[in-house]
């Protein structure tokens, strides 16, 4: 490989990593602002105009804060757990296509880090590593609330994993490929976003995404009102911040995956309709970000609206509602695919 | 605070005025359980029955079940300390009937460390209320399922609501600084 061949991915990785970190911190601000507006208040207003510098202040605060390792905790696992939670959330972005190809300085630069032919499988497997972080955190803390929370988390995450993977199979059948880039291109060739082909899959995937990211109404693993913060009860300072980053990074991953699979990724709306061609003037990565933003907004909106499910109800929804729906959807998709 | 030369020996418990009609549940009780009720009194609209301690449970069961009484709610159990009296404590029960919407107060008089039969078997709601009386006055309740201190710490000495217990407490160490507590706890 040429030196250039190493350099380009490295530059991309650094850009993506920084973009993700900035996006995550500003996601926190967005969440606080949107929820505040939903609740007829202002949200952060002090740091910078309208609180725009709040995420930076938060980051500095978390960096400087005391980082406690409880006396009874398992010291190594206690440190490894947040890393195991954060790293998968970050590296999932490796296969997400932020755009097609762009011409920068006369070179053809892909707007994704890697296009592997098992892209979707990669995301599924990488994101499930994240749950180990939560389980380890609960176990390593050697404290009861985190322990309860990590048991909840493990059961919850694997339950929703099943429905999610089955739904992904439906999408793969429709697209005929596992590559994220190819899935977007399939939507271009089929002249339709897959949301119109697989609406049920979208709903189930999004619900599953809420559960996988521990978001309301499925935020049982950190349910502050019951388990006093859940698996990160004993965490403080930077190690706590890593769980925090992981949760928000995972939200962005879910939004990005949903955008890619169902809303045509970087494609403008209805790319094949002639009189809408002017939408193509807006670069693809901007379309992608706008679509992602919509889903992130929905995450926040749901948090402002819904109460929390109870543990047994959550499992019931996962096993008795989502899995049968996913199976039925898969059957119908496969039959239609072969028939047509 | 106030000038109070000698502590009073007990509440007046005045008898009801002659022209006042007695509530319907009192005379059936008196005929069903003769000489259980030692005194009936009336003051500012409240009827009070003073009952012999050993007959308390019979009276309470009667009041709970008899049609004309049916006191199904035990609102309050509390005590008053009258140190000069031999039976220094008045334990008083505030009863209410959700059917007839009437009230009565039942009182028993007990000496120090004399047990009162627990009414938890008649009204489960008396559980904590009796625990509080035990905690605050040191009156034991016979047959109580779980007689422990409730408001004060388990290892507390004395019973704060007694009249001979000083307002400032028994003179325990005053620990102003929270770190003093920690030092107490961790120094061998």
């Amino acid at each position, binding site marked *: 490989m040429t030196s250039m061949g190493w350099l380009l991915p490295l530059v991309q990785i650094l850009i993506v990593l920084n973009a993700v970190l900035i996006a995550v911190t500003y996601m926190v601000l967005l969440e606080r602002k949107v929820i505040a507006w939903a609740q007829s208040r202002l949200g952060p207003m002090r740091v910078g105009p309208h609180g725009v510098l709040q995420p930076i202040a938060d980051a500095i605060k978390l960096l400087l804060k005391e980082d406690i390792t409880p006396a009874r905790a398992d010291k190594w696992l206690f440190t490894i757990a947040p890393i195991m939670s954060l790293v998968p959330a970050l590296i999932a972005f490796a296969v997400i296509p932020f755009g097609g190809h762009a011409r920068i300085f006369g070179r053809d630069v892909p707007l994704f880090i890697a296009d592997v032919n098992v892209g979707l499988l990669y995301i599924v497997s990488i994101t499930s590593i994240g749950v180990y972080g939560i389980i380890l955190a609960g176990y390593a803390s050697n404290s009861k609330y985190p322990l309860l929370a990590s048991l909840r988390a493990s059961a919850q995450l694997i339950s929703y994993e099943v429905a999610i993977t089955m739904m992904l199979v439906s999408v793969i059948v429709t697209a005929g490929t596992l590559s994220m880039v190819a899935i977007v291109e399939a939507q271009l060739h089929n002249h339709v976003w897959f949301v119109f082909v697989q609406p049920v899959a979208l709903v189930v995937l999004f619900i599953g995404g809420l559960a996988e990211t521990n978001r309301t109404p499925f935020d049982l693993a950190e349910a502050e009102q*019951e388990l006093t913060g859940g698996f990160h009860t004993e965490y403080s300072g930077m190690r706590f911040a890593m769980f925090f980053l992981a949760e928000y990074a995972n939200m962005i991953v879910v939004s990005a995956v949903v955008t890619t699979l169902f809303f045509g990724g970087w494609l403008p709306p209805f790319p094949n309709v002639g009189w809408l061609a002017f939408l193509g003037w807006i670069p693809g990565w901007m379309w992608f970000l706008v679509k992602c933003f919509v889903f992130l907004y929905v995450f926040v909106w749901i948090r*402002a*609206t819904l109460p*929390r499910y109870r*543990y047994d109800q959550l499992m019931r929804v996962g096993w008795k509602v989502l899995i049968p729906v996913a199976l039925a959807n898969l059957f119908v998709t496969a039959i239609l695919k072969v028939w047509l | 605070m106030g000038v109070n030369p000698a502590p009073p020996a007990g509440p007046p418990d005045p008898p009801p005025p002659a022209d006042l009609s007695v509530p319907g549940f009192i005379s059936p009780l008196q005929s069903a359980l003769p000489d259980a009720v030692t005194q009936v009194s009336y003051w500012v609209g409240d009827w009070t029955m003073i009952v012999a301690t050993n007959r308390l449970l019979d009276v309470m069961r009667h009041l709970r079940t008899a049609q004309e009484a049916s006191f199904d709610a035990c609102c309050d159990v*509390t005590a008053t300390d009258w140190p000069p009296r031999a039976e220094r404590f008045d334990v*008083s029960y505030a009863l209410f009937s959700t059917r007839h919407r009437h009230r009565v107060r039942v009182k028993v008089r007990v000496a120090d460390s004399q047990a009162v039969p627990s009414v938890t078997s008649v009204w489960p709601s008396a559980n904590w209320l009796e625990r509080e009386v035990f905690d605050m006055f040191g009156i034991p309740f016979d047959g109580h399922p779980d007689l422990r201190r409730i408001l004060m710490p388990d290892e507390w000495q004395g019973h704060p609501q007694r009249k001979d*217990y000083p*307002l400032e407490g028994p003179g325990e160490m005053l620990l102003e600084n929270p770190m003093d507590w920690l030092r107490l706890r961790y120094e061998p």
Partner: protein
Amino acid sequence: MSLFDTDELVINMGPQHPSTHGVLRVVLRLDGERVVGADVVIGYLHRGIEKLSEHRDWQQIVMLTDRMDYVSAATSNLGYCETVEKLMQIEVPRRARYIRTILSELQRIASHNLWLGTHAMDIGAMTVFLYNFRERELILDLFEEFCGARLTYSSMRIGGLPLDIPSGWARKVSAFCDLFETKIPEYEDLLTHNRIWKERTRNIGVISGADAIAIGLTGPPLRGSGVPRDVRKDEPYAAYDEFDFDVPIGSAGDIYDRYLVRLEEFRQSLRIIRQAIAGLPEGPVVGKVPRLIKPPAGETYHAIESPKGELGFFIVSDGRSNVPYRFRVRPPSFCNLQALPRLIKGHLVADVVAMIGSIDIVLGEVDR
């Protein structure tokens, strides 16, 4: 089988826990997430208000009653003042009784606001919390205008009120009633027909009416079980006998019914306030009270309906000193909390916080 035997997990919920509404400690014994047994430990906020009151002047005690149910100080003031008035047989002027009714109903709304907000928060619905605090703030403004304080009002005196209402205050109360009426549907939109809310609250902590009476529940938790017991109706005090209002009752006796009962109480409170404002009589706000308050020797028990349930005062006067001989409070929170172990047995950890919320306790009143 011993290979698969498991121990029960003993876990302390509280005293430092976000959802125990104060320094309440519940020692839970868990099998998985199911509650096998629970022991309630209280006393962390015990300040000895009863003992203190036996060393305070009769008028000074009003200030102590503020500190019992600190989110509903006005009803505690009312209960205490009425008990002393009963002991001294003082006639309270009609205007004062009307204003007391208005104050205690405003207080009921404020207290229910706080309850609904925190209860919804416990179940994870955070927006309702802030909506409720938004409206509660308006009530606190009204109280501030009346007596200068926002939380511990000391808003009543033995024999009447410390002062008449400011001019224009009644109009502001009416305006608040009109505004608040439009806000109740906002809470209902977020909760009443919300599927998750219903699943979290229905058939949880069910208790029958007879059991509820026996275990000592009063107030909305008792009415949620279908018992129409309300001190305001049964033993009217202040000016409640002059107003039309209904006592809402539930049927199932679960958390959801207790919620519905309290929501309906919002509306009934508005109804009472409006009638009281419309018919507010002129006249003095303090009755004929002797300069030195010294009730004749005797004892009495008097109860009112606080937002939490039956708030009773048992006061003994020896007729000689200027302090009560015995001062006893029958706190509704204390008696209602007693039902907690029975209500949560067999439910899940998540239901424990919902249950604590549904019986609406204030630890300042539980421990006194």
